[in-house]
């Protein structure tokens, strides 16, 4: 584990204006994630967990503060530059899987590599699907897979780009206990094997407890 953080959020805040005036979603949050480290963000519903994750992943821009990725500016980049860095360095696992329904399992896993411009994405995608135990279901469409299987495809898609950083938003939230356990095992196993840093948003204390560190959000304020 290296000491220099791969991801730094420096006093990051997010406010939105609504019909009842300005609403603060997140207040001056500072987070550092080191390479290979796993960090859980927990908190009650509406506390700002997904807002923070969106900001850290560069899917949204903060109203104040700054986010650095691998020590260089990230949140101040434009949309395209952030997308390019995200594609090269980050992976995602969503609660509701977010697989492309019209692509097969194999094509879904190939997609992020293709977006990076790789011409021959298929061998890597096959390998990762094999690792998550879906080597026999390459040609299936998401609609033909169970929830647990879909999330395994999503894991393969996240790891196939060999990310330095993986963002996971309630990865077991849509699954039953057994499937949830299996996905969590896979996630931490691959996290360890690849040395990827993990930022995990969860309600589940057991899942949070498996991370190296836990951060708690309450009403937009971050507590260690």
């Amino acid at each position, binding site marked *: 584990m290296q000491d220099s953080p791969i991801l730094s959020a420096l006093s990051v805040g997010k406010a939105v204006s609504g019909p009842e005036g300005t609403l603060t979603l997140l207040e001056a949050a500072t987070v550092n994630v080191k390479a290979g480290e796993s960090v859980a963000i927990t908190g009650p519903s509406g506390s700002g967990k*997904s807002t923070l*994750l*969106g900001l850290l*992943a560069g*899917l*949204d821009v903060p109203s104040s503060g700054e986010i650095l990725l691998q020590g260089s500016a990230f949140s101040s980049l434009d*949309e*395209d530059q952030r*997308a*390019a860095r*995200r*594609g*090269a360095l*980050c992976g*995602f696992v*969503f609660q*509701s899987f*977010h697989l*492309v*329904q*019209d*692509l097969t399992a194999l*094509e879904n896993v190939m*997609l*992020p590599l*293709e*977006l*990076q*411009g790789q011409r021959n994405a298929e061998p890597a995608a096959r390998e990762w699907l094999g690792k998550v135990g879906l080597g026999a279901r390459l040609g299936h*469409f*998401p*609609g033909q897979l169970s*929830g647990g299987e879909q999330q395994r495809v999503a894991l393969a*898609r996240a790891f196939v780009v060999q990310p330095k950083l993986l*963002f996971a*938003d309630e990865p077991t939230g849509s699954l039953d206990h057994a499937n949830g356990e299996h996905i969590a095992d896979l996630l931490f196993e691959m996290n360890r094997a690849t040395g990827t840093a993990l930022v995990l948003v969860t309600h589940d204390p057991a899942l949070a407890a498996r991370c190296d560190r836990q951060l708690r959000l309450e009403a937009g304020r971050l507590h260690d």
Partner: protein
Amino acid sequence: MTELSRLMLRPWRDSAFRILALALLVASLALTSVVLLRAELDARFNARGAEMLGGHLVLDGSRAPEPAQREIFSDLAHSELIKFQSVVVHNEQVLLVSVKAVDQHWPLLGEVLLSDQRFGGTQSSVQHGPEAGEVWVADQLLDRIGLQVGDVLPLGQSSLRISAMLVREPDQGGGFYSMNPRVLMNRSDLDRTGILAPGSRYGYDVAMLTGNPEAISEQLTPTLRPDQEIENVDDTLNRSMGPLKQLTLWVSLGVMLITVLCGAAIYLTTGLRVARRATMAALLRTFGASRQTIIRRLLGHELLAVLPVVLIGIGCGGLIAVSARNALGWEGALAAGASEWLLVLLGPLTLFAAFALPRMSALAAVPALQVLNRQDHQSLRRSGIELAAALIGPMAVAAIVTGSIQDLLLVLLLLASLGVLLPALVWPLLVALDKRSKRWSVASRIAVRRLSRRRTTTLPLMAALTLAMAILALAGQSGTGLLSEWQRKLPANAPNHFILNLFAEDQQVLEQWQQQHGAIANPLYPIVRGRLTLINDVPVREAVTKENDRADRALNRDLALTEEGRLPESNLVRDGQWHGERRGEVSVEAELADSLGLKAGDHLTFVTSRGELQATVTSIREVDWESFAPNFYFMFSPGAFVDQDATWLTSFWLPEGDGRRVAELMSALPHITLLDVNAILERAQGIVTQASQATAVLAGLLVSAALLVLVAALLATADQRRADQGLLRALGARQALLRKVNWLEFVALGLGAAIGATLIVLAAMAPLGILLFKGQLLWSWWQCLPLLTGAGVALLGGLIGRRVAAGYRPSM
């Protein structure tokens, strides 16, 4: 807020419902405006047709009706007229006249236009016939026998005072081929003239007014004698007014196409809305609701929410129809009756129910768990009932709204089947592209996969785009085709005067006079009067077995024969070859040729004042009798009249001005017959103007409906597009890539639809040609419109892609 208003407002929170509501709004608006405008047109032209006929129904025969027939029409307002030919002799001039003796009820409809002198007199309109002891006569009669208004006209054994010159009768119809000048007299004077004796030939017409011509016609039909027939407004309009028939068909076609387009828009948007309601259906099922309850609840609430939208659409459509009426200067109460209003209300609701009902019922059949687990519910979309409803729904509404679908069935079937079949044919192509796309750029791969993997989105979208493009092109093509045909038939300077009995030496005088007064001259035709006597050397009476009215008329009188090397514009050779400059040949009008059994190669002999005239039939011509141009049954090749006594016939257009110009010509050439057809021409041009305006309004509505389908198609897929872009963005795709994917997707969609639409337009040319253009195929730039629209769709896709890519912020 009441429970009812809550139920009505709740669906508006869903964007899919708002899109559906927009589609229904425009569907109601388009259907209402077009149905109301059609009712206006029908009413106006029916009134005009009834005026031309002289009533809503006319019983004509060669003697008075039977007592049993009188019983049928005695309670109706009716007028009895007697028509016959007679000879007027004055100052040693003999003139054949066409007499109409009218009773005190004539005219049942319209007005008689009179003038108090031949040239430059004061005109007045009246709604009665001449008093006893008086006659009203046509201008030619005054010219030919040298009488004036106020003089006495000897008719048979009596003398009647000419109290006015007849400018126009309301029931003179659209034709002006009866060359004998009109004498209008009071029936009570008829016996005094002693003209009609037992055995005399005359026509006895009973014109009647009735609210239900069909019923009276049905009652009269079994009582008809062989010499009697019933004429109704439709006969009059169809026979004498070509543009009206074309307009009626075009309006019906327009109504049908608008229905199909609205159906397509509702189909696309209903699918989206129903998919959103899937969760509600599943929840209701988990709570133990029966299928019927689910359908009733979902569909019932939906119907409740769409009803105000449909009513607003009807209101807007009504406003458009009223504005169009005002713009066209049409007055009077709205012509639409209860049935039309019911139709405009039920039309959109039927379309909605046809698409929503099968989908909702399919929704209620899907296991709740499948929906709640977000599993793909393909079974919802592959329902055979749904496809049947998609085809039958709009066709049924089109049939009801059009009134009769018989004439349009072929076009409708063609559209429906090609609209569905063509995208299905495009499908294998897309699948093949998908397989070959592995080596393409990532943008191309994603774009092709989006289309080829989403059969249930791509096919309806492509079908709707194909239909919209095809209908745009068809509407433009046939609308402008009709306008230019009417314009060609009745240009602004169509001849408004005809001259007969012109001699060769008169031509220079006429030419000078025409130049002096800015008249536009038309070709001169030599006329020889002759009677057909032999067909292939067999006397015509023996040769013609298939005798009918037209043949009878052709055989029993001298016909105006002409020679001409150039085929007139209003004629079309049906069989054989036009003779051009070849000698000894003759071309025959098609209907007469059919009734006489004539064909190319037959040898004809005519008797003329100078002996015989012989020629071989080398062509059979279709003649447009509605054109304001001289037309002939027999046209000989040049040189045929070398030894004949020929006079000349011509026509010309004279700008508006006073009657002294014509008086000058008549005094220079007193022996000619001059027919002033301004009144008839104005009536025909009035009809064409209104038909043209109605065509333009309808074309505008069609274009709007087609654009609606395009918008609905794009809106219906907008959510999916946003979700796709979001995911790609989260996975690291750049804006340029997103834009390119969108653009390529729309290029493929636009191009596929454009090719399909072009094929439909080409395939529809034959049935449309038969329906509207007497079998002629209409080639025009409109055939390229689908390709241009396809390019437009691609461009739009590019713009949307730019907007979506720029505006989207992916969320977790």
